[in-house]
């Protein structure tokens, strides 16, 4: 055999090996995506059942929890929130309005320009949904595109000359879009979008959120447990209102919902 034909054989072997690796990767990707899809479906069902179990009545339960109409459940939640002086949030999708309340007094109203509710919440048993909504949820964590408090650190001037330099400076007010997500202890996530901010900013925020959820699900999957389906309520308000809502709410604010 001459060297040319040996070289040709090696090339052919390499090519077939590369092909095998490529096909292997694709098969793995396929298997993974189908698995992910199946598990997502199962987890949606599981979460639905778990909400129904936690807040609703199980079929074999002896004393069923009675159904409270949604408007009364919302009133009950607001009434509970009114007992504390801190700022709380009410989201009323029926009247398309989000309000800030302090001790039961409505201090700010933000009309909703649009909203979307995860179908899981609509698929809950009415008793479960009303029980879920009759006590206020608490914000456990949040993420946002703006800071809660826009703190600027300033070193004290050494003398009057240095102080005079700052004297006539106008404060810089940055117009940053406030996209934020509140993670509630009931498992629901409230995503607030400024209505005017369409296009790229919105796309980036949604992509980030989805990536975060995907990463969270993957890590749960790798730990061998079933990832949880996260019900989301997405509301759109004006850019100024979004900023006000976010900045006004304390870190662990209470939230009442009417779907």
């Amino acid at each position, binding site marked *: 055999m001459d060297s040319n034909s040996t070289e040709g054989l090696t090339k052919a072997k390499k090519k077939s090996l590369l092909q095998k690796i490529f096909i292997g990767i694709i098969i793995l990707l396929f298997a993974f995506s189908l698995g992910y899809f199946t598990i997502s479906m199962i987890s949606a069902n599981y979460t639905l059942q778990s909400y129904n179990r936690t807040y609703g009545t199980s079929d074999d339960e002896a004393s069923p929890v009675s159904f409270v109409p949604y408007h009364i459940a919302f009133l009950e939640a607001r009434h509970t929130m009114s007992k504390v002086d801190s700022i709380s949030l009410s989201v009323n999708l029926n009247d398309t309005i989000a309000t800030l309340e302090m001790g*039961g007094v409505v201090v700010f109203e933000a009309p909703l320009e649009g909203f979307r509710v995860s*179908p899981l919440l609509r698929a809950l048993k009415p008793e479960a949904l009303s029980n879920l909504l009759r006590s206020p949820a608490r914000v456990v964590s949040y993420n946002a595109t703006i800071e809660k408090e826009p703190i600027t650190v300033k070193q004290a001037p050494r003398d009057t000359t240095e102080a005079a330099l700052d004297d006539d400076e106008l404060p810089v007010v940055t117009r940053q879009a406030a996209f934020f997500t509140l993670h509630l202890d009931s498992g629901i996530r409230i995503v607030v979008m400024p209505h005017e901010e369409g296009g790229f900013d919105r796309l980036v925020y949604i992509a980030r959120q989805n990536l975060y959820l995907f990463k969270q699900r993957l890590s749960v999957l790798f730990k061998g447990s079933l990832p949880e389906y996260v019900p989301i309520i997405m509301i759109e308000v004006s850019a100024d209102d979004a900023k006000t809502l976010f900045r006004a709410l304390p870190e662990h604010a209470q939230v009442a919902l009417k779907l």
Partner: protein
Amino acid sequence: MDWKEKYLNPVLNKASEFLKEIPFKKILRYTGIILFWLVLVFLPFIILVYTPSMVNGYLSLKYSALNYTAPDEDEVAKQKMEKEADRMAKRLEAATPRGAYIVINTTTNTFRLYNKRELVREGNCSTGSYVKLVKDDEREWMFKTPKGIFRIQGKVTNPVWRKPDWAFIEEGLPVPPAGHASRFEYGVLGDYALSLGDGYLIHGTLYQRFLGMPVTHGCVRLGDDDLEVVFRTLPIGAKVFIF
């Protein structure tokens, strides 16, 4: 020779020869292979990206199939619940002061003044700048307006500003002893001041052009006309909602 034989036929012949030479089967085969690989490679990503929508779609279908209706309550229980709801609604309504109160929005630097549950005035104000003043890494002050429910604790006309330490440090001046004459400044707080406690005031300002901006050291500044209306409307004890 007519024009067809002379001009058209050679072109048609050439075109048919060219078409015969095109390997249609090969092109179809390769297009098929390329499409197959494209689908194979991108399908997993499409499945991953659209999984949330498909799950939501599935849940929506399930929701329509379930067709839940709210369970019927017996009339007595229903009436009892509605009564309780009425009571709660009344209690919530009663939380809103009947007299005068003011609501201050520190994000937009605006205020709304209410009396007898009606809006009587609204406008711009200035609230805390969120500046953290640091002196030699030893002392620091945070200039922010506190949030919460307050009450008017006192009202003064022609208030005198008793300058705190930070006012001197901010100007690069040495801090004088307590009670020193340089601590008292006249005319800078406007014609009126309403105390909220802990040294926080609602007062006027010389810097009217900064109204609507976060520039204060924690107090709430109002324009001259607004301040007068607020001063005359809010009695001592009136509620101040700051968020």
